[in-house]
């Protein structure tokens, strides 16, 4: 039988409409961090042991009860007509660049991808996977973009810092973003 704390946590993780962090769970249950962590472990074990279709996922900085992937096809039927489609390649590439460079301007994304990214940015904004987060203090004060919590949930990431590290990207970006093709081509001629 599950203890009271595990039951409380289970109820919270079911009823919430966003992931709940350990801190929030401590406050909501009036328990300490260790007790809460242990209760989560007991809950995980109980769900697994009796073969339920539910799992505790750690995403977007918190915990949430979710169906396990083996039931995806069955459950997806419920949302058939309102589930957004997979992202386009342009959108997912644009998202990758924003995720690794945030906050980041449209021009910076376009410098990496070598193509216009207007419509990709627009569709990402509409799906709330990126947001406008400010302006860059350079000429023209362009808008900057960053990823959202929905981005983390959408890809099952627990934290933006948990994106896999990429050496090439870090090396190249640390020496400055590449300029756009246009400027590459024409600056030589001017010089």
């Amino acid at each position, binding site marked *: 039988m599950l203890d009271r704390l595990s039951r409380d946590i289970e109820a919270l993780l*079911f*009823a*919430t*409409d966003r992931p709940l962090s350990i801190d929030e769970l401590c406050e909501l249950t009036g328990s300490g961090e260790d007790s809460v962590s242990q209760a989560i472990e007991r809950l995980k074990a109980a769900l697994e042991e009796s073969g339920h279709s539910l799992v505790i*996922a750690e995403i977007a900085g918190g915990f*949430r*009860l*979710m*169906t*396990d*992937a083996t*039931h*995806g*096809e069955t*459950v*997806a039927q419920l*949302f058939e007509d309102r*589930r957004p489609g*997979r*992202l386009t*390649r*342009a959108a*997912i*590439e644009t*998202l*990758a*660049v924003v*995720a*690794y460079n945030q906050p980041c301007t449209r021009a910076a994304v376009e410098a*990496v*991808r*070598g*193509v*216009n990214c207007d419509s990709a940015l627009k569709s990402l*904004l*509409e799906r*709330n996977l990126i*947001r*406008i987060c400010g302006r860059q203090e350079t000429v023209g004060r362009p808008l900057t973009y960053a990823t959202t*919590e929905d981005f983390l*949930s*959408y*890809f*099952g*990431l627990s934290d933006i810092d948990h*994106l*896999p590290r*990429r050496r*090439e*990207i870090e090396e*190249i*970006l640390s020496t400055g973003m*590449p300029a756009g*093709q*246009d400027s*590459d*081509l*024409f600056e*030589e001629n001017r010089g």
Partner: protein
Amino acid sequence: MSADACRISLDAFEGPLDLLLYLIKRDELDIYQIEAAVVAEQYLEYIRKALELDLDVASEYLVMAATLTSMKSRALLPASRGQEADEIGEAEALMRQLVLYKAFKEIAQDLRESEDLWRNIFPSAGERERWSADSPPAIPGQLTIIDLLTALEELSAPADKAPDQRISRPVLTIAECVEELGGKLQTGVWTTLSALTGIGFGRSRIVGFFIAILELVRLGRLVLRQRRPFAEIEVLRTEFW
């Protein structure tokens, strides 16, 4: 290049960098040791085939074609003072751009896999309706700036479409360049390139026109002349147009 390979239309690529990566992989070239002449040759060959097949070629591809052509011609010329360094800088810049884009392509692939997995994992709908009182105000995240902008856009849409609004410009294709050239050139009259492209327009437009003109020269429909180095390029429409 085989006929099959040409059938891969440019639509399959996310731009010139993507096409270059495809060619580098296809020909098993070393991305870290790019030989401008080889890569440029393959790329230009691909673009040329696409043009022959009457595929629309976006100006971004043409800008890259111009960059590669410039790199290639420098590589072929005897090196003058300071030029060698330029060449290395150019090749290095392209290499870095390709390596960076390749890394992001791989990340995009990883994200795609996560997307496919997490699209099949569902949260509960939550019990907000059940446990919360029915009071007015809003929850952050229900509404984004985009909703505000869309509302504003729709409000102002029918009213003022004044001529001083931003000029939206579709991507220029070679076919469009050729068509525009046809309208502007008269047989037997020399016309300058700048008169054809119009002054103050984008570099992509100039490059697009230039490539279209080179293609038309190759087909014998146009003749080109330049009176001295760096002088205006002039174009003449022949009777074979």
